[in-house]
C-alpha cells in the first residue's frame, strides 16, 4: 500500500483550477471542483500531454492538446480521442498540508 505524500500546503489549489505535483514517481493533477479536491493522473492517455495544463469545466477536464475529456471524479473518458481512462488517487488536506496517496507501486 502506498503512503500518503505531502505535495504542497493546504489551499494550494484554487477553486476551478488544476495543479500538478510529483507524488512518488507519478505526476498527479489535483483539481478543485467547487471546493472539493480530486486527484488524477496528469498524463493524457492519448499522446501524453499534461492535463493540468487543460481547462476544468465542472468535473470535466479537457486536454489542451487534442481535446480529450475526462471526468476528474472517476478518471473515465467522456469524449475525444483518449483510448483509456486515467487513474484517480486519494487526496486530502490535513494539518495544513495537501497530501496525495497513489495506489500502485509502479
Amino acid at each position, binding site marked *: 500500500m502506498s503512503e500518503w505524500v505531502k505535495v504542497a500546503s493546504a489551499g494550494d489549489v484554487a477553486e476551478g483550477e488544476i495543479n500538478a505535483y510529483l507524488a512518488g514517481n507519478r505526476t498527479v493533477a489535483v483539481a478543485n471542483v467547487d471546493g472539493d479536491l480530486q486527484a488524477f493522473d496528469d498524463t493524457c492517455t492519448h*499522446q501524453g500531454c499534461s492535463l493540468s*495544463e487543460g*481547462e476544468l469545466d465542472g468535473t470535466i477536464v*479537457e486536454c*489542451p492538446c487534442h*481535446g480529450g475529456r475526462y471526468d476528474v471524479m472517476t478518471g473515465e473518458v467522456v469524449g475525444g*480521442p483518449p*483510448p483509456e481512462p486515467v487513474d484517480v488517487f486519494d487526496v486530502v488536506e490535513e494539518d495544513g498540508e495537501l497530501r496525495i496517496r497513489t495506489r500502485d507501486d509502479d
Partner: protein
Amino acid sequence: MDVVVVGGGLAGASAIGTLRAEGFDGRLTLIGDESVPPYERPPLSKEYLRGEATEPQWVRPAEWYQENDVELRLGLRADRVVADERAVLLADGSSVPFDRLLVATGVRNRRFEVPGIDLEGVFDIRFLPDADRVRQTALGASRAVIVGAGFIGCEVAASFRQMGLEVTVVEFFETPLFRVIGADLGVAVEALHRDRGVGFVFGDAVERFEGAGRFEAVVTKGGRRIEGDLAVVGVGTKADPPLGLGDRNGGIPVNPMLETRTEGVFAAGDIADHAHPVFGQIRVEHYDNAIKMGETAARNMLGAEIVFDDPHWFWSDQYDSQIQMAGYATEWDDMVVRGSIEDRTFSAFLLKDGVLRSTFSMDRKFDVRRSMPLITAQARPARALLADPEFDLRQLHPAKGAS
C-alpha cells in the same frame, strides 16, 4: 438491432466507441476500405512522417474490437446504400443489412491535374502508405518542393525542415493559409516558416512537374523552375463518392441531428454536409469534428435527439508552435487582436456585424477554446474585453442550461 458503420476513419471509430459506451449491445459492424483498423491521420504530416513515431496512432488498441464485439470488415469498399432494402452494397457484390447506418467515408485528396503529376517522386498524403512512401523518399533527399501552403503543406514543410531538407513552397495566394485566415494573419504563419528557413513562392502556380523518369523540378506558370528530389502536393480534397446519398457539395446532406434524408441513415465526419444551427449548411474536415460528430451520431442512432452545434475546433502543430482555430467565417468586417502578431503569440477574433464568428490563435493556449461557447451563442463580446490578454473569456459564457 443491427448497426453498421461504413468508413474506418476517426468518425466511424468514434461512433462505435460511443455506441458501446452507451450500452448498445446489438450487432455492430465496421466496414472500412483501408486494410488496417482506424488510426489518426494528423501524425501523418508530423510525428509519423518524421519517423519520431514508428507506430501509427491507432484510435483503439487492436484487442478492443474483439473485447467489444465489433465485427471489423476491412479492405472492403461500400458502393451504394439501398434505402428500400435497408442494406449497404459492397464493391465485391455482397450486401450488408442494417437497422441503423452511419456513413463516415471521408474525403480524398483532389487530383491535381497538371502534366507530370504521375512522375515518381511526386506525392500527396492522406493514407498511412502515403506517409510511409514520403518518409522513405525524404530520408534520402536534400531538397523538397511543396505545392500549396494550406495546413497540410505548412505541416509537411515544417516536418521536412525538422528532417533537415531544404524546402520551397509554391502557393497561389499571397500568404500561407490565405483562404482560412486572410493575409493579415497569414503573414505570421509565413514568418514562422521563414524563420526556420522555408522558401516561399507566392502568387504563382504549378504548370508542370518535370523529370526524366522521376521528379526533378516544378515549372511554374510564372516561368520559375524549382528543383527538388521530391514534391508533395496539398491542394485540397473532394468528397468520396457518397453511396447514392450525395448532394451539390459532393457530401451527404444531414439535418442538424446528423440524419440523412433516409430515416435511420446518418452521416458524420468529413463527408457530412451538415445543416449547422449557427453556420448554416457546411462540410468541414477537422479531426475534432470527426470525433464529436461520431459521438453525436451514435447517440442519435440510439434515439437521442441531439442537435450538433459544436463550433468546429482544430489545431495544427508546426515546429514548436501550436495554431488553433474555431468557428467559421468566410468574411468578417472586424478583427480584434489579443497579444502580438509580430511575436506570434496572439489570438485574433473575427467578427461580422459585431458577432464573434471565429477565433484563431498562435501559442495562446486557452483563448480559442474559451471563445467556443461565445461562437455557438453568436455572442457580441465587447472589443476591449477581447483585446485584453488578462481577461478570461469564460466570464462571458452563457449560463449553463440557459442556452
